[in-house]
């Protein structure tokens, strides 16, 4: 069961139910897109997968390679190979990227990581992202532009090499060059041992990250699943078209 599976997931924040029975499977080795209009619950799903304590899960399961991770803390989930690229990466003044990344890598691998080993990994990642080494000594996201923050998320993705990654609107607010860089990073991760869920509002990023499947979320559940052509259709016809179609189906 090498897959990330979400089963009948219900969740709320401040008494308001946001997720209303999400079902979704991302097999290892595949990249799926999760699309949907604003307020559909896409980002909520991303945060809940990572274990954001702000949300209350009311029902359902999140199975990572068959193991329910709902009761695990965010760091335990991460060490089991789950990664969330944040929509709004958090600024942490006083903690340098280098220091943080090395600690995170050590936590992930459960052993000391020597300076040489660490630098080899980081340098490779920086090359893929075409990013300057100088960023490593900067404080985590402090004073970063939107694009720099997203690039920093992908840097962490490349260094930590998770088994499953959720990218929460990593494309939003990026110009086309930054978007290409981010896509390059994700594509570098692609392979039989990596699965990803790319959450996005727009089809644009999917020109650079070809999804194996596209899921569409509306009103707290996945209402449609299809091939890459579904994204193009949505781009052309809009979400309202799908909403009508779903209504008809129901």
């Amino acid at each position, binding site marked *: 069961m090498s897959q990330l599976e979400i089963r009948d997931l219900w969740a709320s924040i401040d008494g308001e139910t946001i997720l209303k029975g999400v079902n979704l499977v991302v097999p290892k080795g595949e990249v799926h897109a999760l699309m949907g209009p604003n307020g559909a619950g896409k980002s909520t799903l991303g945060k809940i997968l*990572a*274990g*954001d*304590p702000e949300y209350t899960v009311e029902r359902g399961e999140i199975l990572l390679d068959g193991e329910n991770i709902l009761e695990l*803390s*965010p*760091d335990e*989930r*991460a*060490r089991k190979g789950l*990664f*969330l690229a*944040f929509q709004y*990466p*958090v600024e*942490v*003044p*006083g*903690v340098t990227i280098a*220091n*943080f990344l090395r*600690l*995170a890598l050590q*936590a*992930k691998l459960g052993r000391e990581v020597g300076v040489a080993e660490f630098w080899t990994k980081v340098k490779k990642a920086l090359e893929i992202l075409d990013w300057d080494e100088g960023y490593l000594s900067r*404080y985590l996201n402090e004073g970063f532009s939107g694009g720099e923050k997203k690039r920093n998320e992908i840097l*962490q993705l490349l260094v*930590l090499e998770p088994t499953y990654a959720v990218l929460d609107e990593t494309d939003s607010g990026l110009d086309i060059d930054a978007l290409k860089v981010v896509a390059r990073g994700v594509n570098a991760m692609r392979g039989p041992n990596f699965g990803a869920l790319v959450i996005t509002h727009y089809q644009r990023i999917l020109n650079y990250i070809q999804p194996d499947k596209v899921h569409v979320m509306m009103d707290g559940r996945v209402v449609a699943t299809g091939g890459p052509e579904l994204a193009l259709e949505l781009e052309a016809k809009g979400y309202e078209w799908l909403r009508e179609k779903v209504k008809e189906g129901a």
Partner: protein
Amino acid sequence: MQVLDKTQVEAVSKALGEPGWLLEKRLKALEAFARLPYPSKKDENWRYTDLSEAPLEQEIETPKGLRLSRDQLPEPVRRRLERTDVSGFLVFVGPDLVYAEVPEELRQKGLVFTSLAEALKTHPEKVQSALFQGVYTEDKFAAENSAFFTHGAFLYVPAGLEVEKPLGVFKVLLEGGKASAGRSLLFLEDNAKAAYIEEYLSLDLPPTLHLSATEMVLRPGARLRHAHVQTFGEGVWHFHRQRALLERDSGLNDLVVNLGGAYARSEVASELLGPGSESEMLGLYFGHGRQQFDHYTLQHHTEHHTRSDLLYKGAVKDEARAVFSGLIKLEKGAQKTDAYQANRNLLLSPTARVDSIPQLEIGANDVRCTHGSTTAPVDEMQLFYLQSRGLPRGLAQELLVKAHLADVLSRIPLKALRAHIEAIIEEKVRI
């Protein structure tokens, strides 16, 4: 048991072979000590502090004439000497100056770094002109120190001499149960430059009173970097008072660190007496268990074109408490003055507490002056972000505490001292 009276003051003064003027000053301080009541919560400056468990009225520990070789130094000091920034240093075990190492090259240039008792013999006029100018009988504890102090360090830097490497004092308490009272007197002549680190160490002790005072005289153009680093073990109640007198165009960079002991109180004043003088005042504290750290600061501008910049940052966990009370006082003549003050606190537990009281008293109109204070728990968003990358909550918290204190640490250009402080912070987060 000895009591804190005239007989004892005379005995201390005699044992140290002090001149008559000093005994007189001590006796005057004794009068103040006898007259002043111990502070209580009714006093504005003590309203957040409970001294009911403080070992007040303890007998003063007097010197035994102990001398040690470098190899015989107590373990905590030896460990510090393995990695330190200082090039010359004095080691006090309780009231005894047990070891001194001062570079010959500096001595030849006229620098004096020795015990106060020794300096009274070799440089009596210098000591007499400066001693008690900064700290004398401001409160009960200052008066107690001035009347009963048994030891001290004296640093004299002649005009124009620039000493790059820091000099330092390591004071270690090995036995508890008695009061220890000591002083530092730092005198920098015109355009002299020096750095001075005071470190206070001990093992865990039974309740013990520790009194320290640091007086700094900066003649025109002098530059001094000063650090007071308190890392006592459990049981020590530490009362520290310091005051810097800054003459024209002089500059002080001051750091106060409180990490150890049961209770520590630092009263830190910079007197900007000459135009062009400036004072950077940094503070760092991290309390755990039931520790309490109080910081009372004064940025006192009496002259025009003076500048002060204060940043005190702290964290408290468990049931620890901290108080920051900072006053910027600008006299009428202090035009074209810049004065800044910031106090930032991190609360690591719901039972930890900080009281922060920034205050301004402005008597001049053409000034730039800001102050601010924040006290907040650890940012849950930051914690979640760090955890989401695999860092266990404890390690994430440790990172955030270090990050919180980082901008004070980054302003300390003393590498070994910084590493020492960081190591203690790490240890404390994990307790």
